[in-house]
Structure formats: structure tokens, C-alpha cells
């Protein structure tokens, strides 16, 4: 079963696609509390890919490294840091732990090239990310809302989406 540590993956990627990797600073998820212990910074070991080189990196992972199973694309909204992080998760069909590529895009212009034309597995993941977070996947053939109805405004999974209509908060009995 193939195994590849994040550092190894980073080295392979750096060798094959020198421009693709970006260095990111550790990220604070929440504003530092006024008192009490400070929460740690978030700094995962996985390679961060520049959005422009995402497709090349993903295809490198698939075609050269053989990680042909695109398992998951998760978007995380880091409101305090002002960015979206997309977590791409790949697995090798022969088994073993997976590898992760991360992409960070600014919250105000969340644009990522779409993987769907090259890799149909990304289709629903990207539509879901678009629907719930408003990340725009450039080049997606059918980028429409997948869960919410088409007329829905706003992106419900964003951290600044207002929570309303709650039975326990709204209205007085």
C-alpha cells in the first residue's frame, strides 16, 4: 500500500510543478480572547497549492502519483482570517492513507478553477461548495445550486450568514 507523508508530497510537487506551491502563514481561527489561554494557530502540514495551478497539481496527483480516487472537497470558511480553504482529499486505489491538497482563496473573490472537466468526481462536490459557500468554480459545466432552491440568496454555510427563524430565538409566545 503506498504511503506518502505531506512532506514527501510537497517535495514531489515542488519538483514537478515549481510554481504551484505557496507558503502560508499559520492561521488564527477566532479573534484572540481577552483573557484566558490563547488557542493555538492552525497550520496543517499539507501542501498549499496556488489556485491557478490547482488543476495541474490535481492531475499530477492522479496521473503521476496514482491517487486516482478524489474522495472529498471540503470548504472551510475562516471568517476571521478572511479566506476560504478548500481541502482536496485523494486516495490511492491500492489503499493506504490519503493525501491532501489545500487551496486558500480570499473570501471576497472566491474563485477556483474547476476540476470537473478533467475529473468528473469533483462535480457534485464543487456544486455543493458553490451552493453552500459561494465558491465559484471557473470552468464548471453546470454550476448551479444543488441543495438550496435557485432563487435562494446568500450562502448558508458561510460563517457570517445570519441565523434566523429559530424557534427559540425568534418571536415571543
Amino acid at each position, binding site marked *: 500500500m503506498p504511503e506518502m507523508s505531506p512532506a514527501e508530497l510537497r517535495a514531489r510537487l515542488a519538483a514537478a510543478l515549481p510554481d504551484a506551491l505557496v507558503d502560508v502563514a499559520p492561521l488564527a481561527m477566532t479573534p484572540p480572547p481577552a483573557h484566558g489561554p490563547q488557542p493555538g*494557530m*492552525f497550520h496543517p502540514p499539507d501542501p498549499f497549492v496556488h489556485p491557478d495551478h490547482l488543476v495541474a497539481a490535481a492531475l499530477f496527483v492522479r496521473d503521476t502519483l496514482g491517487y486516482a480516487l478524489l474522495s472529498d472537497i471540503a470548504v472551510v470558511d475562516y471568517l476571521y482570517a478572511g479566506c476560504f480553504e478548500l481541502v482536496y482529499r485523494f486516495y490511492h*486505489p491500492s489503499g493506504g492513507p490519503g493525501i491532501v491538497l489545500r487551496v486558500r482563496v480570499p473570501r471576497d473573490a472566491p474563485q477556483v478553477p474547476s476540476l470537473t472537466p478533467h475529473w468528473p*468526481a469533483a462535480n457534485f462536490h464543487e456544486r455543493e461548495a458553490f451552493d453552500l459557500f459561494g465558491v465559484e468554480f471557473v470552468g464548471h459545466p453546470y454550476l448551479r445550486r444543488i441543495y438550496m432552491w435557485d432563487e435562494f440568496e446568500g450562502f448558508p454555510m458561510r460563517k457570517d450568514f445570519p441565523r434566523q427563524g429559530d424557534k427559540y430565538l425568534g418571536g415571543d409566545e
Partner: protein
Amino acid sequence: MLQTQELQVNIGPQHPSTHGVFRMLVTVDGETVVDLKPVFGYLHRNHEQIAEANTYLQNMPYTDRLDYFNSMANNHAYAMAVERLAGIEVPERAEYIRVLMVELTRILNHASAVGFMINDMGAWQTPLAFGMREREKILDLFEMASGARLMCNYFRFGGVARDLPPEFIPNLRELLVALPAYIDELERLLRDNEILLQRAVGIGILPREVALSYGVTGPVLRGSGIPYDVRKAEPYSVYDRFDFDIPIGKVGDVYDRFLVRIEEMRQSKRIIEQVLEQLPDAKGGHINPKARQNVRPPVGDAYARIESPKGELGFYLVSDGSGKPYRYKVRAPSFINLTPLADMCRGYKVADIVVILGSIDIVMGEVDR
């Protein structure tokens, strides 16, 4: 020359065989499917947002509601993700109990999935009724252990909610007597049935390269001939201690998926028998006594995946150091397995759509989240 017109038919959202509120916008030429667009979201409740407003433990019963056939499997994946995030050890006995429950879930799910698929083919409930009978027995066991039949909410961080009751093991042993009889009988009823062969062989073919590129998992991927099973590919829990085989299909059609599911039930039974052998020697109690209810994991993220009966079920959690998950993402197998639906249906007849959908085995609670 007669002028012909393509017809657009909405199958769903209210339809007897869409397994919930699911809509397929089908363009048909006569009875042949020209195009198909799946439309969902009718059951969308923003599960992930709800989860981000809850504490880690409070999410456990909500995971039950994802794939309401396999609440134990959902619990397992979520518990594993939180344990990885917070670094909680799980005692050996608890792991065995977990495996036992998840494998029972697999049998339960496949029994009813096969039944539903045959139902979609037009059998009048009989295979489903037989499957449901076995399912009821397993649910009785779940009820004994966890207190609920469907929404088990049985797993806790660091173990399971309570130890197996004394009457559990004898009843399970009795059930294990009935299981092979049930599976054999199901095969006798259906396997060589000419009508089933007509309806299943060569229908909804998903070649293995295509299946892989679509990212499908579970019995659909294995039915296409790729022996990818998370239990073997990346063994979690105590799965590396059991002997079991991975059935794969040859062609990747509905019949292969049907046969793979039947064989997986046998393999699950094998695992359960091994669990019963090894369980008395397992160390530890049913839960890690140090595990607390109020988990506050350090800042970081964790991903845990299991081989749920429907495919690879993953939970991605990001913690900001508080008692609630900062991000909670479900990698739902039935959702992703729907990706190739349009390609699988194109060129087949209207009647095949529901069979292909049935062979994918989706649960809308998980698809829509």
C-alpha cells in the same frame, strides 16, 4: 416519416421509487432515456450548519439522521473523527462492539437495499419483506444494546454508550443461524431468476475506469470491479484482526452490484463470528473512563472515514479549540455515488432508471443532508 418529439418527464419528487424526495428530470425519446438531471435538496436541512451550532457530543444523535438505515455506521465515523481530533483512546472491547454493530448494520442495509432494488424492478414486496424480517431482528438487537431501533445514538467518544446487555450475545448467535439460511434462500429466489437476469444483466453499466474517475465508493465501486474497501485499504478500528474477503463484480452492471451486496452480507457474517470469538478476550470496558462528555479538542483538523454500507463515509472536522466544531463536513457516500447516475442511465429505458437508482442504494437523508 412520422415526426417524433422528445418528452420531458419528472420522476419525483413524489414518486414511489425515488427512495425519498428525489427528482430526476428525464428526457425520454419514447421509452429510451436521452438525458437525466438529478435534482435534490428537498430534504436539505443544513445538517452541517446545525452541527456547527452544537457541541461535539450533541451532534451524535444528528449523525443518526444522516443515513437513517445505518445510524451505527454514521456514529462510528463521527466518533472516530472526534477521537482523532481530540486524541481519545478507545478500549479494545469498545472497538469490538463497534465493529460488531457496524457489520450488523451492513447486513441490515444490504438486506433492505437488495429488497428495495427488487421492489423497483416490480416484485411485489416479497424480497423486501424477507429482507425487512432479518432487518427487524437486527434492529431488535440494536434496541437491546442502545435503546433505539433506528436512531441508535450508541457510540460515544472513547467507546460506546453502554455495554452489551447479557441477552444480546445469545440472541445474536440465534440470528447467525438464520442469516445464512436467509441469504441462501434469497439467492435461490432471485439469483437465477430469468426475469431478474433480464432486468439486471447489462443494465446501468459503470466500467471500472469510469467508476473510479467518478469517485464512487462502496458496493457500486466494487461492483465495477475495483477491490477498494476502506476496511482493507486503510484498516481502522480492529478490522486488521479479521479474515474476510472483498467481493468484486465483473461488468459493473446492476446484477454485479446485487451479487456483491449478497456476498458482502456473507463476509459481514464472517466478521461477526470472529468478533464473537475474540470479544471475551478483549481488554478494557465499553468506554474509555477518561473520555468526557464535554470534548474541547485543540485547534486542528481531522478526517476519519469508514466503509459504511453505502460507501466511504467521511467526517471532516475542524476545531477552533472551543466545545463546538468550527467546521463539520460529511462526505456522504450516497451523495457522491449519484454523480454518475446520468451517465449510467443514458440509453436505457425509463423502467431501468429506477432499477439503476435502486442499485446505487441511496438514502435521501444522507444525500440532501
